[in-house]
């Protein structure tokens, strides 16, 4: 089970995952995240401060979450992404699809 350390800032659900998101926990990550969306949270900010590794399996989950929230007129954004992780978003073109903000206050302002 992946712990997302959820908290609410006004109507925005802020999630604070830690460690790695890769093939070994992507499924659990997916269930946890999509479960939140299904439960009605359509505005989600992923605080990536504690994430030091993400593979395409993790990206895939983020992509699915981004699609779902956008379908529900919500949105998924990221903040505090470490440099080398940010590179992945850049290389994969995800940075064009999922908004990435430098820090949390800045990100929250966009909701």
């Amino acid at each position, binding site marked *: 089970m992946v712990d997302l350390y959820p908290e609410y800032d006004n109507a925005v659900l802020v999630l604070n995952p830690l460690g790695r998101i890769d093939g070994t926990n992507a499924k659990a990550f997916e269930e946890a995240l999509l479960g939140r969306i299904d439960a009605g949270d359509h505005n989600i900010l992923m605080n990536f401060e504690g994430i030091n590794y993400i593979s395409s399996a993790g990206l895939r989950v983020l992509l699915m979450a981004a*699609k779902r929230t956008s379908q529900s007129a919500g949105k998924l954004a990221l903040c505090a992404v470490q440099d080398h992780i940010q590179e992945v978003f850049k290389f994969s073109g995800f940075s*064009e699809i999922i908004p990435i903000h430098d820090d949390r206050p800045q990100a929250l302002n966009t909701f």
Partner: protein
Amino acid sequence: MAGRIVGMIMVLTLAGVIASAAVLLFLAFDAEDESGQRSAELFAESVARSLLDADIRSLSDAEVNALVRLNAAEETQDEAANLTHIWVFNPEARQVAASDGTPNAQRAEITVARQAIRDASGTAVSTLPNGDFAGTAVVRNRDGEVTGAVRVQFSSDRIGNHFDVYRTEYVIGVVAILVALLLGSWFLSRRLARPIGLMVRAAHTVEMGRQPEPGVAASLRNTSLTRDEYGELAGVFLDMAREVGAREIQLNALVEARTEELSVKNRELEDAQREIRNDLEMAHSVQAALVPSELPDDPRAGIAAYMTPALDVGGDFYDAFITDDGRLAFSIADVSGKGVASALMMAVGRAVLRSAANQHPDPSEAIASTNDQLCSMNPKELFITAFFGVIDLQLGTLTYVNAGHDPPYIMSSGGSPEMIPHTGGIALGVLPGLSYTETTLPLDPDVTLFLYTDGITEAENSTGQQFGRERLEEKLTSLSSEAPGSLMDDILRDLAEFRGEAKQFDDITCMAVQFNGGEASLDSYIPGQGDARLASGWRRMVVQPSLDTSLPRVAAFIERFAESEGFDATEVFRLNLALDELLTNTLEHGFPDETEDAEITVALRSEGEMVVARYEDNGPAFNPLEAAEQDTELELDERPIGGLGLQLIAASFDAVSYERVNDRNVTTLRQRRASASDDSE
């Protein structure tokens, strides 16, 4: 014994009898002699007296004969017959006349006559050499004047008639005395010797551990009743025999008891021995199972190994296995000492070294770690000399550490053996905290390594000569093109022949490793192949076909490599991501259901300013570059899910190449080092 005594007594008796008979005969003859001389005297004087009135000078032989007859008439008939000769001499001692048949007087007879005339003495008598008797008397006239001399002579056998007459009685008497004496002495000696004979017989019986036979005992009892010394002796002997018999019985009982005790102790000892024997045999089998019975089976390397302890258990070991990252690790070692303690140390040493070899990719670190662990569990100050080597089967390099062991040999096919240079390490278990140096050698295809313990070179034959390095090298030269199995068999056969009947003093262990050449697929992508093969920069690991197991291990593998190469976090992340994506892809598409046959390896290396990663799998042909050609410009809704990872790799690395070699997918990634790219940007 008794026979000898009887014989001796009889001989003595016989000697006595013969001596007394001789004395008797001598006395008889002596008496005869005396009487003969007396007769001669009387006869001579009688003849002289009968010539009292005769004219000597004119006396004729006839008158002398008459004189003989006259005298014969006076004497008995018998004695007259004895007279043989009569000579008559005148006062000048010249023969005047003689009886018939008388030879002329000789000088001796004349001398005696002259002597008698001159001395005018009595009658001279003598016994002649032939036993006859002679008497010479002077003749006187009535006035007493000497008118001449007369000599008479007569034979003894005729005189000894007294003896002749009683000869038979003499002989019978002597024989009778002799027989009587012999009989007497026989009875006497029998009586003396018989008890001794009985005792001798009885003593023989007692000596053989039995009581005297009843007949013998009864005779001895009878003897013991007599009051002489023999009686006493027989009594004492009978008491002694009884005593000896009693002691014999007592001793026999004692011996029997002790024998029983001894056999019980013996049985206990045998049981204990059997138990130890069983224990040792068990230990022997356990130890035999500790050295790998199945050596790594890889077409790129052939291995053969052999170990036989001098005692039931030994202190040598060898090991050969494929490490977790796919290299061939092998070792040979010799624990100081022999026997159970060394065998235990051997078991520990082998296990520790094997696990260290899997934990530490660098042989020097594996050996240092093994040393530290052994030092911490070595109460008896045992130490282990060891050679530990790792062959990168794809690159064809040998990286090794020698911890005080005899340098193994390396030889090319048809070449002569050369010692693998020592790395200067000291034996394991001596001092903790030591660092060891490793050396890397390129291995040409078809080279053979021969590892051994001193049980081979120091094996002695019956004359105390050692097998020695020279002999071993000679043998290796002639066998350098053999396969490991037959090479080793040949050397062991040679060693056995050399040793002959001599005892094996030390454990004998050896191992032959033949490198058949690396894989073509790997060779093809190493730039500057020949030189590159010398480099030991490759790190390689075998990846288990399970994401959960392998991802953390690949991450750790990359971490170790990155640490030694001084990579930054971004470079580590890229390597992680790329290998993660490739592995995930293989597991999802290459082996969706069955992963048992999956062979996946990851290799990393620095080439100057470049990082090179090589990923291989034996799944179906799949080119990740084609799959990665995905449009990253699509809008979110249009984005397909998947293919993303490969796209990420392509984006993260400067160069990605793919080839299909030997039914394997080989993906090679190259990335300029971040520190280098910083300068250029």
